[in-house]
Protein backbone atom coordinates (compact mmCIF):
# COMPACT_ATOMS: atom_id res chain seq x y z
CA UNK A 1 0.00 0.00 0.00
CA UNK A 2 1.37 3.36 -0.97
CA UNK A 3 1.95 5.51 2.06
CA UNK A 4 -0.38 8.46 1.98
CA UNK A 5 0.62 11.98 2.79
CA UNK A 6 -1.85 12.41 5.58
CA UNK A 7 -1.15 15.98 6.44
CA UNK A 8 0.04 17.49 3.19
CA UNK A 9 -3.07 19.63 3.16
CA UNK A 10 -1.69 21.53 6.14
CA UNK A 11 1.06 23.02 4.04
CA UNK A 12 -1.61 24.70 1.93
CA UNK A 13 -2.93 26.51 4.95
CA UNK A 14 -2.11 30.15 5.18
CA UNK A 15 1.41 31.10 4.41
CA UNK A 16 4.33 31.86 6.63
CA UNK A 17 3.28 31.29 10.19
CA UNK A 18 3.79 33.87 12.87
CA UNK A 19 7.05 33.51 14.70
CA UNK A 20 6.74 33.48 18.47
CA UNK A 21 6.08 37.13 19.31
CA UNK A 22 9.09 39.32 18.92
CA UNK A 23 9.75 41.43 21.96
CA UNK A 24 6.98 43.91 22.45
CA UNK A 25 5.68 45.61 25.59
CA UNK A 26 6.05 43.05 28.33
CA UNK A 27 5.69 43.64 32.03
CA UNK A 28 4.87 47.33 32.31
CA UNK A 29 2.31 48.57 29.84
CA UNK A 30 1.95 52.34 30.00
CA UNK A 31 -1.14 52.67 27.81
CA UNK A 32 -3.53 51.89 30.68
CA UNK A 33 -2.02 54.69 32.75
CA UNK A 34 -1.79 57.07 29.80
CA UNK A 35 -5.43 56.54 28.92
CA UNK A 36 -6.55 56.93 32.55
CA UNK A 37 -4.64 60.21 32.85
CA UNK A 38 -6.05 61.52 29.57
CA UNK A 39 -9.60 60.50 30.58
CA UNK A 40 -9.28 62.53 33.78
CA UNK A 41 -8.79 65.63 31.61
CA UNK A 42 -11.09 64.76 28.70
CA UNK A 43 -14.60 63.45 29.44
CA UNK A 44 -15.13 62.52 25.79
CA UNK A 45 -12.75 59.60 26.25
CA UNK A 46 -15.42 57.90 28.38
CA UNK A 47 -16.56 56.25 25.17
CA UNK A 48 -13.36 54.22 24.98
CA UNK A 49 -12.94 53.30 28.63
CA UNK A 50 -14.44 49.88 28.08
CA UNK A 51 -15.98 47.58 30.65
CA UNK A 52 -15.15 44.30 32.38
CA UNK A 53 -18.76 43.66 33.48
CA UNK A 54 -19.97 40.50 31.76
CA UNK A 55 -23.60 41.57 31.96
CA UNK A 56 -25.34 44.93 32.16
CA UNK A 57 -29.09 45.15 32.45
CA UNK A 58 -31.77 47.67 33.32
CA UNK A 59 -35.51 47.31 32.94
CA UNK A 60 -38.27 49.86 32.64
CA UNK A 61 -36.01 52.69 31.52
CA UNK A 62 -37.21 56.24 32.07
CA UNK A 63 -38.62 57.55 28.77
CA UNK A 64 -38.98 61.15 27.64
CA UNK A 65 -41.68 61.44 25.00
CA UNK A 66 -43.71 58.43 23.93
CA UNK A 67 -42.69 55.14 22.38
CA UNK A 68 -44.77 54.72 19.19
CA UNK A 69 -47.34 51.90 19.57
CA UNK A 70 -46.26 50.28 16.31
CA UNK A 71 -42.57 50.14 17.22
CA UNK A 72 -42.17 46.76 18.90
CA UNK A 73 -39.18 44.47 18.79
CA UNK A 74 -35.50 44.44 19.74
CA UNK A 75 -32.75 46.83 18.67
CA UNK A 76 -29.43 44.97 18.80
CA UNK A 77 -25.96 46.51 18.68
CA UNK A 78 -22.42 45.14 18.90
CA UNK A 79 -19.02 46.66 19.52
CA UNK A 80 -15.63 46.08 21.15
CA UNK A 81 -16.08 46.59 24.89
CA UNK A 82 -13.18 44.93 26.70
CA UNK A 83 -10.30 47.26 25.91
CA UNK A 84 -8.11 46.15 28.80
CA UNK A 85 -7.16 42.54 29.46
CA UNK A 86 -4.92 41.95 32.44
CA UNK A 87 -2.07 44.43 32.20
CA UNK A 88 -2.61 45.09 28.52
CA UNK A 89 -4.64 47.91 27.02
CA UNK A 90 -5.29 47.14 23.37
CA UNK A 91 -3.58 49.44 20.90
CA UNK A 92 -6.59 49.67 18.58
CA UNK A 93 -10.33 50.31 18.93
CA UNK A 94 -11.11 47.23 16.83
CA UNK A 95 -9.44 44.70 19.15
CA UNK A 96 -11.63 44.36 22.23
CA UNK A 97 -14.04 41.48 22.78
CA UNK A 98 -17.56 42.12 21.57
CA UNK A 99 -20.40 43.03 23.88
CA UNK A 100 -23.86 42.80 22.39
CA UNK A 101 -26.49 45.30 23.54
CA UNK A 102 -30.22 44.65 23.21
CA UNK A 103 -32.93 47.26 23.66
CA UNK A 104 -36.34 45.67 23.94
CA UNK A 105 -39.32 47.85 22.91
CA UNK A 106 -42.56 46.48 24.41
CA UNK A 107 -45.97 47.65 25.59
CA UNK A 108 -44.36 48.02 29.02
CA UNK A 109 -41.62 50.35 27.82
CA UNK A 110 -37.93 49.86 27.02
CA UNK A 111 -35.46 47.57 28.76
CA UNK A 112 -31.75 46.91 28.16
CA UNK A 113 -29.59 43.79 28.35
CA UNK A 114 -25.93 43.72 27.36
CA UNK A 115 -23.63 40.69 27.48
CA UNK A 116 -20.22 39.75 26.18
CA UNK A 117 -20.11 37.15 23.44
CA UNK A 118 -18.54 34.07 25.02
CA UNK A 119 -16.03 33.28 22.28
CA UNK A 120 -13.25 30.74 22.75
CA UNK A 121 -10.87 33.69 23.15
CA UNK A 122 -13.02 35.44 25.75
CA UNK A 123 -13.48 32.31 27.87
CA UNK A 124 -9.78 31.43 27.76
CA UNK A 125 -8.63 34.95 28.61
CA UNK A 126 -11.11 35.39 31.46
CA UNK A 127 -9.83 32.16 32.99
CA UNK A 128 -6.18 33.06 32.51
CA UNK A 129 -6.59 36.68 33.60
CA UNK A 130 -4.47 37.91 30.72
CA UNK A 131 -4.45 38.35 26.94
CA UNK A 132 -3.66 35.04 25.21
CA UNK A 133 -4.56 35.58 21.57
CA UNK A 134 -3.29 37.88 18.88
CA UNK A 135 -5.46 40.84 17.93
CA UNK A 136 -6.08 42.94 14.82
CA UNK A 137 -4.10 46.01 15.80
CA UNK A 138 -2.08 44.95 18.84
CA UNK A 139 0.99 42.76 19.06
CA UNK A 140 0.03 40.73 22.13
CA UNK A 141 3.00 39.65 24.29
CA UNK A 142 3.44 35.88 24.67
CA UNK A 143 0.39 35.10 22.59
CA UNK A 144 -0.51 31.46 21.96
CA UNK A 145 -0.17 30.21 18.38
CA UNK A 146 -3.50 30.33 16.57
CA UNK A 147 -4.61 27.29 14.60
CA UNK A 148 -7.49 29.04 12.89
CA UNK A 149 -9.00 32.53 12.58
CA UNK A 150 -11.69 31.56 15.10
CA UNK A 151 -8.96 31.27 17.75
CA UNK A 152 -8.74 35.07 17.48
CA UNK A 153 -12.42 35.79 16.92
CA UNK A 154 -13.50 38.85 18.93
CA UNK A 155 -17.13 38.69 17.67
CA UNK A 156 -17.30 42.48 18.05
CA UNK A 157 -18.44 44.24 14.88
CA UNK A 158 -22.12 43.72 14.14
CA UNK A 159 -25.16 41.69 15.09
CA UNK A 160 -27.83 40.39 12.74
CA UNK A 161 -31.14 38.69 13.45
CA UNK A 162 -32.04 36.44 10.52
CA UNK A 163 -34.21 33.36 10.04
CA UNK A 164 -34.94 33.20 13.77
CA UNK A 165 -31.27 33.17 14.75
CA UNK A 166 -29.13 35.99 16.14
CA UNK A 167 -25.62 36.22 14.73
CA UNK A 168 -22.71 38.21 16.20
CA UNK A 169 -20.37 39.07 13.36
CA UNK A 170 -16.60 39.59 13.05
CA UNK A 171 -15.14 39.70 9.57
CA UNK A 172 -12.05 37.60 10.27
CA UNK A 173 -13.92 34.41 11.17
CA UNK A 174 -17.22 32.71 11.82
CA UNK A 175 -20.44 34.26 13.00
CA UNK A 176 -21.36 33.38 16.60
CA UNK A 177 -24.90 32.36 17.35
CA UNK A 178 -26.57 33.95 20.38
CA UNK A 179 -29.90 33.23 22.07
CA UNK A 180 -32.11 36.19 21.05
CA UNK A 181 -33.56 36.77 24.54
CA UNK A 182 -30.81 35.92 27.00
CA UNK A 183 -27.84 36.66 24.70
CA UNK A 184 -26.29 33.35 25.79
CA UNK A 185 -23.57 32.33 23.33
CA UNK A 186 -24.57 29.10 21.58
CA UNK A 187 -21.38 28.60 19.54
CA UNK A 188 -19.97 29.42 16.13
CA UNK A 189 -22.23 29.19 13.10
CA UNK A 190 -21.20 26.63 10.48
CA UNK A 191 -23.21 26.88 7.26
CA UNK A 192 -21.76 23.65 5.81
CA UNK A 193 -19.02 21.34 7.16
CA UNK A 194 -16.35 22.55 4.73
CA UNK A 195 -17.17 26.15 5.63
CA UNK A 196 -16.43 25.73 9.33
CA UNK A 197 -14.20 28.63 10.42
CA UNK A 198 -14.33 30.41 7.05
CA UNK A 199 -14.61 34.21 7.38
CA UNK A 200 -18.15 35.65 7.27
CA UNK A 201 -18.15 39.43 7.04
CA UNK A 202 -19.86 41.83 9.42
CA UNK A 203 -21.87 43.45 6.60
CA UNK A 204 -24.23 40.93 5.04
CA UNK A 205 -26.97 42.40 2.88
CA UNK A 206 -30.53 41.17 3.24
CA UNK A 207 -32.69 41.96 0.23
CA UNK A 208 -36.42 42.64 0.54
CA UNK A 209 -37.15 38.92 -0.08
CA UNK A 210 -35.11 38.04 2.99
CA UNK A 211 -32.26 36.46 1.00
CA UNK A 212 -28.95 37.08 2.71
CA UNK A 213 -25.84 37.82 0.66
CA UNK A 214 -22.43 37.95 2.23
CA UNK A 215 -18.72 37.45 1.64
CA UNK A 216 -15.67 36.43 3.64
CA UNK A 217 -12.22 37.83 2.96
CA UNK A 218 -9.33 35.37 3.10
CA UNK A 219 -6.38 37.79 3.28
CA UNK A 220 -3.65 35.15 3.23
CA UNK A 221 -4.87 33.63 -0.04
CA UNK A 222 -6.26 36.89 -1.49
CA UNK A 223 -9.68 35.44 -2.17
CA UNK A 224 -13.30 36.24 -1.44
CA UNK A 225 -15.71 33.53 -0.37
CA UNK A 226 -19.27 34.44 -1.42
CA UNK A 227 -22.47 33.27 0.25
CA UNK A 228 -26.14 33.20 -0.71
CA UNK A 229 -28.42 32.16 2.16
CA UNK A 230 -32.18 31.81 1.97
CA UNK A 231 -34.64 33.65 4.17
CA UNK A 232 -35.00 30.47 6.21
CA UNK A 233 -31.26 30.18 6.77
CA UNK A 234 -30.37 27.52 4.20
CA UNK A 235 -27.10 27.89 2.34
CA UNK A 236 -28.05 28.17 -1.34
CA UNK A 237 -24.78 28.93 -3.05
CA UNK A 238 -21.09 29.43 -2.27
CA UNK A 239 -18.41 30.78 -4.57
CA UNK A 240 -14.75 31.75 -4.41
CA UNK A 241 -13.23 34.65 -6.34
CA UNK A 242 -9.51 35.31 -6.45
CA UNK A 243 -7.95 38.66 -7.23
CA UNK A 244 -4.45 39.92 -6.57
CA UNK A 245 -3.77 41.82 -3.36
CA UNK A 246 -7.31 41.90 -2.06
CA UNK A 247 -7.10 43.31 1.47
CA UNK A 248 -9.12 45.35 3.96
CA UNK A 249 -12.51 44.57 2.40
CA UNK A 250 -14.97 45.40 5.13
CA UNK A 251 -18.28 45.90 3.31
CA UNK A 252 -19.96 45.38 -0.08
CA UNK A 253 -23.24 46.11 -1.88
CA UNK A 254 -25.65 44.13 -4.03
CA UNK A 255 -27.89 45.05 -6.93
CA UNK A 256 -30.42 42.84 -8.69
CA UNK A 257 -27.57 41.23 -10.67
CA UNK A 258 -24.23 42.06 -9.09
CA UNK A 259 -22.17 42.10 -5.92
CA UNK A 260 -19.80 45.07 -5.79
CA UNK A 261 -16.59 45.44 -3.82
CA UNK A 262 -14.13 48.32 -3.56
CA UNK A 263 -10.52 47.22 -3.10
CA UNK A 264 -8.25 49.89 -1.59
CA UNK A 265 -4.68 50.33 -2.90
CA UNK A 266 -3.08 48.35 -0.10
CA UNK A 267 -1.17 45.13 0.20
CA UNK A 268 -0.58 42.57 2.92
CA UNK A 269 2.99 41.60 3.70
CA UNK A 270 3.43 37.98 4.75
CA UNK A 271 7.04 38.82 5.61
CA UNK A 272 5.97 41.51 8.06
CA UNK A 273 3.57 39.31 9.92
CA UNK A 274 6.14 36.50 10.00
CA UNK A 275 8.54 38.97 11.59
CA UNK A 276 6.04 39.68 14.34
CA UNK A 277 4.06 42.73 13.22
CA UNK A 278 0.37 42.89 14.10
CA UNK A 279 -2.14 42.03 11.40
CA UNK A 280 -2.94 45.73 10.89
CA UNK A 281 0.71 46.77 10.72
CA UNK A 282 1.37 44.10 8.11
CA UNK A 283 -0.75 46.12 5.70
CA UNK A 284 0.82 48.90 3.64
CA UNK A 285 -0.56 51.61 1.42
CA UNK A 286 0.64 51.44 -2.19
CA UNK A 287 1.21 54.94 -3.58
CA UNK A 288 0.18 55.48 -7.16
CA UNK A 289 -2.18 52.53 -7.32
CA UNK A 290 -5.90 52.96 -8.02
CA UNK A 291 -8.86 51.72 -6.01
CA UNK A 292 -10.43 48.78 -7.87
CA UNK A 293 -14.15 48.19 -8.23
CA UNK A 294 -14.85 44.47 -8.45
CA UNK A 295 -18.25 43.52 -9.87
CA UNK A 296 -19.29 39.88 -9.51
CA UNK A 297 -22.32 38.28 -11.15
CA UNK A 298 -24.67 37.27 -8.36
CA UNK A 299 -26.09 34.36 -10.29
CA UNK A 300 -22.94 32.37 -10.89
CA UNK A 301 -20.49 33.91 -8.41
CA UNK A 302 -17.77 33.66 -11.02
CA UNK A 303 -18.12 36.20 -13.81
CA UNK A 304 -16.21 39.27 -12.69
CA UNK A 305 -15.24 42.67 -14.02
CA UNK A 306 -12.79 45.17 -12.61
CA UNK A 307 -12.74 48.92 -13.18
CA UNK A 308 -10.68 51.59 -11.51
CA UNK A 309 -11.50 54.57 -9.31
CA UNK A 310 -9.04 57.13 -7.93
CA UNK A 311 -7.12 55.85 -4.92
CA UNK A 312 -9.11 56.02 -1.71
CA UNK A 313 -10.21 54.13 1.35
CA UNK A 314 -13.62 53.22 2.67
CA UNK A 315 -15.41 51.34 5.39
CA UNK A 316 -19.06 51.45 4.46
CA UNK A 317 -21.49 51.45 1.60
CA UNK A 318 -25.01 52.89 1.62
CA UNK A 319 -26.86 51.04 -1.13
CA UNK A 320 -26.61 50.09 -4.81
CA UNK A 321 -29.07 49.54 -7.63
CA UNK A 322 -29.01 48.73 -11.31
CA UNK A 323 -31.35 50.22 -13.92
CA UNK A 324 -32.85 48.49 -16.96
CA UNK A 325 -29.90 49.43 -19.19
CA UNK A 326 -27.43 47.96 -16.70
CA UNK A 327 -26.12 51.22 -15.27
CA UNK A 328 -25.25 50.78 -11.61
CA UNK A 329 -25.44 53.53 -9.02
CA UNK A 330 -24.11 53.20 -5.50
CA UNK A 331 -22.98 55.32 -2.61
CA UNK A 332 -20.24 54.85 -0.07
CA UNK A 333 -18.31 56.83 2.52
CA UNK A 334 -14.88 57.58 1.13
CA UNK A 335 -11.67 59.02 2.52
CA UNK A 336 -8.44 59.77 0.68
CA UNK A 337 -6.44 57.32 2.73
CA UNK A 338 -6.63 54.84 5.62
CA UNK A 339 -5.33 57.18 8.31
CA UNK A 340 -8.58 56.98 10.26
CA UNK A 341 -7.91 53.28 10.73
CA UNK A 342 -4.14 53.40 11.10
CA UNK A 343 -3.88 56.54 13.21
CA UNK A 344 -7.14 57.88 14.71
CA UNK A 345 -8.43 54.58 16.06
CA UNK A 346 -5.02 53.76 17.51
CA UNK A 347 -4.38 57.16 19.14
CA UNK A 348 -7.78 56.99 20.85
CA UNK A 349 -6.64 54.02 22.87
CA UNK A 350 -3.96 56.04 24.64
CA UNK A 351 -6.30 59.01 24.98
CA UNK A 352 -4.99 61.11 22.12
CA UNK A 353 -7.37 62.83 19.70
CA UNK A 354 -5.70 62.66 16.29
CA UNK A 355 -5.44 65.78 14.16
CA UNK A 356 -5.06 66.55 10.47
CA UNK A 357 -6.88 63.50 9.22
CA UNK A 358 -8.62 63.20 5.90
CA UNK A 359 -12.36 63.37 6.35
CA UNK A 360 -14.71 60.66 5.16
CA UNK A 361 -17.35 61.94 2.74
CA UNK A 362 -20.57 60.66 1.19
CA UNK A 363 -19.61 59.68 -2.35
CA UNK A 364 -21.88 58.76 -5.27
CA UNK A 365 -20.80 56.55 -8.14
CA UNK A 366 -22.32 55.84 -11.53
CA UNK A 367 -20.89 52.75 -13.19
CA UNK A 368 -21.69 51.41 -16.65
CA UNK A 369 -20.26 47.90 -16.91
CA UNK A 370 -21.15 47.57 -20.59
CA UNK A 371 -19.50 50.80 -21.68
CA UNK A 372 -16.86 50.41 -18.95
CA UNK A 373 -17.29 53.96 -17.71
CA UNK A 374 -17.32 55.16 -14.15
CA UNK A 375 -17.61 58.52 -12.41
CA UNK A 376 -17.93 59.59 -8.82
CA UNK A 377 -18.56 62.73 -6.83
CA UNK A 378 -18.42 63.46 -3.12
CA UNK A 379 -20.43 65.80 -0.94
CA UNK A 380 -18.42 67.88 1.50
CA UNK A 381 -18.93 67.03 5.15
CA UNK A 382 -17.59 64.40 7.55
CA UNK A 383 -19.98 61.46 7.75
CA UNK A 384 -20.10 57.73 8.50
CA UNK A 385 -22.49 54.81 9.12
CA UNK A 386 -24.58 55.12 5.94
CA UNK A 387 -27.92 53.26 6.17
CA UNK A 388 -31.05 52.92 4.04
CA UNK A 389 -34.61 51.71 4.53
CA UNK A 390 -34.23 47.88 4.56
CA UNK A 391 -37.13 47.63 2.13
CA UNK A 392 -35.05 49.15 -0.69
CA UNK A 393 -31.80 47.19 -0.33
CA UNK A 394 -30.47 46.40 -3.84
CA UNK A 395 -33.19 48.58 -5.36
CA UNK A 396 -33.32 52.26 -6.17
CA UNK A 397 -33.10 54.25 -2.96
CA UNK A 398 -34.03 57.89 -2.66
CA UNK A 399 -33.04 58.50 0.94
CA UNK A 400 -29.68 58.03 2.58
CA UNK A 401 -29.25 58.16 6.36
CA UNK A 402 -25.90 59.10 7.87
CA UNK A 403 -24.15 60.10 11.08
CA UNK A 404 -22.45 63.45 10.61
CA UNK A 405 -19.86 65.56 12.35
CA UNK A 406 -20.96 69.19 12.55
CA UNK A 407 -19.10 70.33 15.66
CA UNK A 408 -15.41 71.13 15.62
CA UNK A 409 -14.25 70.61 19.19
CA UNK A 410 -10.55 69.92 19.74
CA UNK A 411 -11.14 67.34 22.45
CA UNK A 412 -13.32 65.08 20.35
CA UNK A 413 -14.00 63.65 16.93
CA UNK A 414 -16.80 61.19 16.38
CA UNK A 415 -20.31 62.20 15.24
CA UNK A 416 -22.99 64.48 16.62
CA UNK A 417 -25.86 64.69 14.12
CA UNK A 418 -28.37 62.26 12.62
CA UNK A 419 -28.83 63.25 8.96
CA UNK A 420 -31.07 62.27 6.07
CA UNK A 421 -30.23 63.27 2.49
CA UNK A 422 -33.00 63.12 -0.10
CA UNK A 423 -31.02 62.04 -3.15
CA UNK A 424 -33.40 63.52 -5.71
CA UNK A 425 -33.79 66.99 -4.24
CA UNK A 426 -30.52 67.18 -2.32
CA UNK A 427 -32.52 68.30 0.71
CA UNK A 428 -30.92 67.62 4.10
CA UNK A 429 -32.93 66.92 7.27
CA UNK A 430 -30.88 66.75 10.44
CA UNK A 431 -30.92 66.54 14.23
CA UNK A 432 -27.88 67.70 16.16
CA UNK A 433 -27.18 66.10 19.53
CA UNK A 434 -24.98 68.98 20.67
CA UNK A 435 -21.57 68.90 22.35
CA UNK A 436 -22.51 66.66 25.31
CA UNK A 437 -23.11 63.54 23.23
CA UNK A 438 -21.02 61.08 21.25
CA UNK A 439 -23.41 59.63 18.72
CA UNK A 440 -23.35 56.04 17.43
CA UNK A 441 -24.74 54.43 14.28
CA UNK A 442 -28.44 55.13 13.78
CA UNK A 443 -30.52 52.65 11.80
CA UNK A 444 -33.77 52.93 9.85
CA UNK A 445 -36.64 50.73 11.06
CA UNK A 446 -39.68 50.50 8.77
CA UNK A 447 -43.24 51.06 9.93
CA UNK A 448 -45.27 48.39 8.13
CA UNK A 449 -48.24 50.73 7.93
CA UNK A 450 -46.16 53.25 5.97
CA UNK A 451 -44.89 51.50 2.83
CA UNK A 452 -43.14 54.49 1.24
CA UNK A 453 -39.37 54.49 1.52
CA UNK A 454 -38.43 56.21 4.77
CA UNK A 455 -41.83 55.62 6.38
CA UNK A 456 -40.73 54.56 9.83
CA UNK A 457 -38.17 55.47 12.44
CA UNK A 458 -34.53 56.22 12.95
CA UNK A 459 -33.21 54.57 16.11
CA UNK A 460 -29.81 54.95 17.67
CA UNK A 461 -27.74 55.33 20.79
CA UNK A 462 -25.57 58.17 22.00
CA UNK A 463 -23.33 58.55 25.03
CA UNK A 464 -23.96 61.59 27.23
CA UNK A 465 -20.41 62.25 28.37
CA UNK A 466 -21.45 64.74 31.03
CA UNK A 467 -23.86 62.32 32.75
CA UNK A 468 -21.86 59.22 31.74
CA UNK A 469 -25.05 57.55 30.61
CA UNK A 470 -26.10 56.14 27.27
CA UNK A 471 -29.42 57.12 25.71
CA UNK A 472 -31.42 55.40 22.99
CA UNK A 473 -33.56 57.70 20.82
CA UNK A 474 -36.39 57.19 18.36
CA UNK A 475 -37.01 59.71 15.56
CA UNK A 476 -39.49 59.94 12.71
CA UNK A 477 -37.18 59.03 9.82
CA UNK A 478 -38.78 61.70 7.62
CA UNK A 479 -38.56 64.44 10.23
CA UNK A 480 -35.26 64.26 12.08
CA UNK A 481 -35.13 67.98 12.76
CA UNK A 482 -38.21 67.63 14.97
CA UNK A 483 -35.98 65.79 17.43
CA UNK A 484 -36.57 62.48 19.20
CA UNK A 485 -40.13 61.19 19.54
CA UNK A 486 -38.93 59.10 22.46
CA UNK A 487 -35.69 58.82 24.36
CA UNK A 488 -34.78 56.36 27.09
CA UNK A 489 -31.82 56.84 29.41
CA UNK A 490 -29.72 53.97 30.75
CA UNK A 491 -28.32 54.17 34.27
CA UNK A 492 -24.81 53.56 32.92
CA UNK A 493 -22.50 54.31 30.00
CA UNK A 494 -21.97 51.72 27.29
CA UNK A 495 -18.63 51.52 25.48
CA UNK A 496 -18.99 53.06 22.01
CA UNK A 497 -19.65 50.32 19.48
CA UNK A 498 -20.20 49.76 15.81
CA UNK A 499 -23.20 48.25 14.07
CA UNK A 500 -26.68 47.04 14.83
CA UNK A 501 -29.98 45.84 13.42
CA UNK A 502 -33.60 45.56 14.48
CA UNK A 503 -35.77 42.48 14.95
CA UNK A 504 -39.42 43.45 14.64
CA UNK A 505 -41.79 41.67 17.02
Amino acid sequence: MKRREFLSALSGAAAAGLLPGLASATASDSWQAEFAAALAGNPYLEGWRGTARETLSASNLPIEGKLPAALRGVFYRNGPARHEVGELRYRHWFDGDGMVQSFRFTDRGISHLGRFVRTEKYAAEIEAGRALREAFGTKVPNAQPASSPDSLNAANTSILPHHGELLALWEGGSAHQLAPDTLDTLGTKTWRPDLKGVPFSAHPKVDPNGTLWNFGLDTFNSQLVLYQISRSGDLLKVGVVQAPEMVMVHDFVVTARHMLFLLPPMRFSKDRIAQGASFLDSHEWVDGRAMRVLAIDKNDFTTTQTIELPAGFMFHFGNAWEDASGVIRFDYVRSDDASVMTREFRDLMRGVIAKDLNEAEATFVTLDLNRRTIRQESIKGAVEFPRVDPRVVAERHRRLFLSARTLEIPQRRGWDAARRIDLESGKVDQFGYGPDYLMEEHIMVPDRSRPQEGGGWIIGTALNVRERKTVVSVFDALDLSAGPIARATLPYALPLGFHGNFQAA
Partner: protein
Amino acid sequence: MKLRTPNSVLALVAALAWLPVFAADLRVEVRGIAGTDGKIMIALFDNAQNYPNKMTSGLMLNAAAPVVTGVFTGLPKGEYAVQVYHDANGNGKLDTNLVGIPIERFGFSRDAAGSFGPPSFADAKVSVDSADQTIIINLR
Protein backbone atom coordinates in the same frame (compact mmCIF):
# COMPACT_ATOMS: atom_id res chain seq x y z
CA MET B 1 18.85 -28.27 36.55
CA LYS B 2 18.87 -29.09 32.90
CA LEU B 3 21.32 -27.00 30.90
CA ARG B 4 20.16 -25.42 27.69
CA THR B 5 21.63 -27.18 24.72
CA PRO B 6 24.27 -25.25 22.86
CA ASN B 7 22.09 -25.42 19.71
CA SER B 8 19.17 -23.58 21.23
CA VAL B 9 21.45 -21.00 22.78
CA LEU B 10 23.00 -20.40 19.38
CA ALA B 11 19.58 -20.18 17.82
CA LEU B 12 18.49 -17.61 20.38
CA VAL B 13 21.63 -15.55 19.88
CA ALA B 14 21.17 -15.76 16.13
CA ALA B 15 17.61 -14.53 16.42
CA LEU B 16 18.61 -11.66 18.65
CA ALA B 17 21.37 -10.62 16.22
CA TRP B 18 18.76 -9.50 13.64
CA LEU B 19 17.57 -6.70 15.92
CA PRO B 20 19.36 -3.29 15.84
CA VAL B 21 21.61 -2.85 18.79
CA PHE B 22 19.80 0.27 20.04
CA ALA B 23 16.14 0.19 19.14
CA ALA B 24 13.08 1.14 21.07
CA ASP B 25 9.34 1.31 20.80
CA LEU B 26 7.54 4.61 20.65
CA ARG B 27 3.97 4.34 21.92
CA VAL B 28 1.68 7.17 20.91
CA GLU B 29 -1.33 7.67 23.17
CA VAL B 30 -3.91 9.80 21.38
CA ARG B 31 -6.38 11.58 23.64
CA GLY B 32 -9.47 13.65 23.06
CA ILE B 33 -11.06 11.52 20.36
CA ALA B 34 -14.65 12.55 19.83
CA GLY B 35 -17.07 9.92 18.55
CA THR B 36 -16.21 6.54 17.08
CA ASP B 37 -16.31 7.26 13.37
CA GLY B 38 -13.40 6.79 11.02
CA LYS B 39 -9.72 6.28 11.77
CA ILE B 40 -6.97 7.80 13.85
CA MET B 41 -4.09 8.47 11.47
CA ILE B 42 -0.62 8.68 12.99
CA ALA B 43 2.40 9.78 10.94
CA LEU B 44 6.00 9.49 12.04
CA PHE B 45 8.82 11.65 10.67
CA ASP B 46 12.49 10.97 11.30
CA ASN B 47 13.94 14.17 9.84
CA ALA B 48 13.02 17.80 9.32
CA GLN B 49 13.42 17.69 5.55
CA ASN B 50 10.59 15.26 4.97
CA TYR B 51 8.38 16.88 7.60
CA PRO B 52 5.47 17.40 7.34
CA ASN B 53 4.71 16.06 3.89
CA LYS B 54 6.48 12.74 3.54
CA MET B 55 6.20 10.46 6.51
CA THR B 56 8.65 7.77 7.45
CA SER B 57 6.04 5.43 8.82
CA GLY B 58 2.32 5.49 9.53
CA LEU B 59 -0.36 3.83 11.60
CA MET B 60 -4.09 3.69 11.08
CA LEU B 61 -6.25 2.80 14.09
CA ASN B 62 -9.97 2.58 14.59
CA ALA B 63 -11.37 5.53 16.48
CA ALA B 64 -12.93 3.05 18.87
CA ALA B 65 -12.51 4.92 22.16
CA PRO B 66 -11.73 8.39 23.51
CA VAL B 67 -8.11 7.30 23.89
CA VAL B 68 -6.30 4.97 21.51
CA THR B 69 -2.67 3.94 21.42
CA GLY B 70 -0.46 3.03 18.49
CA VAL B 71 3.11 1.73 18.60
CA PHE B 72 6.06 2.33 16.29
CA THR B 73 8.31 -0.60 17.06
CA GLY B 74 12.07 -0.95 16.89
CA LEU B 75 12.94 2.63 16.08
CA PRO B 76 16.61 3.47 15.74
CA LYS B 77 17.96 6.12 18.08
CA GLY B 78 17.18 9.59 16.82
CA GLU B 79 14.73 12.48 16.81
CA TYR B 80 11.18 12.04 15.58
CA ALA B 81 8.08 14.14 15.15
CA VAL B 82 4.61 12.66 15.24
CA GLN B 83 1.42 14.04 13.68
CA VAL B 84 -2.03 12.72 14.37
CA TYR B 85 -5.42 13.49 12.96
CA HIS B 86 -8.87 11.99 13.32
CA ASP B 87 -10.10 11.06 9.85
CA ALA B 88 -13.70 11.00 10.97
CA ASN B 89 -15.21 10.61 7.50
CA GLY B 90 -12.65 8.00 6.44
CA ASN B 91 -11.60 9.75 3.25
CA GLY B 92 -7.92 9.28 3.95
CA LYS B 93 -7.04 12.95 4.31
CA LEU B 94 -7.15 15.81 6.78
CA ASP B 95 -10.13 17.80 5.59
CA THR B 96 -9.74 21.54 5.42
CA ASN B 97 -12.23 24.34 4.95
CA LEU B 98 -12.48 26.50 1.88
CA VAL B 99 -9.58 28.66 3.03
CA GLY B 100 -7.26 25.81 3.95
CA ILE B 101 -7.80 25.56 7.70
CA PRO B 102 -8.21 21.98 9.04
CA ILE B 103 -11.70 21.05 10.09
CA GLU B 104 -10.83 17.59 11.44
CA ARG B 105 -9.09 17.41 14.80
CA PHE B 106 -5.35 17.00 14.86
CA GLY B 107 -2.36 17.09 17.15
CA PHE B 108 1.42 16.93 17.24
CA SER B 109 4.01 15.39 19.51
CA ARG B 110 4.74 17.54 22.56
CA ASP B 111 1.34 19.10 21.82
CA ALA B 112 3.33 21.54 19.72
CA ALA B 113 1.28 24.12 17.82
CA GLY B 114 2.00 26.35 14.88
CA SER B 115 0.34 29.56 13.76
CA PHE B 116 -1.97 28.83 10.84
CA GLY B 117 0.16 25.83 9.97
CA PRO B 118 2.05 22.89 11.49
CA PRO B 119 4.60 23.50 14.25
CA SER B 120 8.25 23.26 13.29
CA PHE B 121 10.02 19.93 13.49
CA ALA B 122 12.17 21.42 16.24
CA ASP B 123 9.11 22.26 18.34
CA ALA B 124 7.46 18.88 17.83
CA LYS B 125 10.41 16.48 18.01
CA VAL B 126 11.01 13.86 20.67
CA SER B 127 14.19 11.89 21.24
CA VAL B 128 14.16 8.12 20.97
CA ASP B 129 16.99 6.30 22.72
CA SER B 130 17.31 2.74 23.92
CA ALA B 131 14.33 2.71 26.23
CA ASP B 132 10.73 2.35 25.19
CA GLN B 133 8.63 5.44 25.84
CA THR B 134 5.08 6.66 25.59
CA ILE B 135 4.12 10.10 24.38
CA ILE B 136 0.70 11.66 24.70
CA ILE B 137 -0.89 13.71 21.96
CA ASN B 138 -4.11 15.64 22.61
CA LEU B 139 -6.32 16.27 19.61
CA ARG B 140 -7.47 19.86 19.09
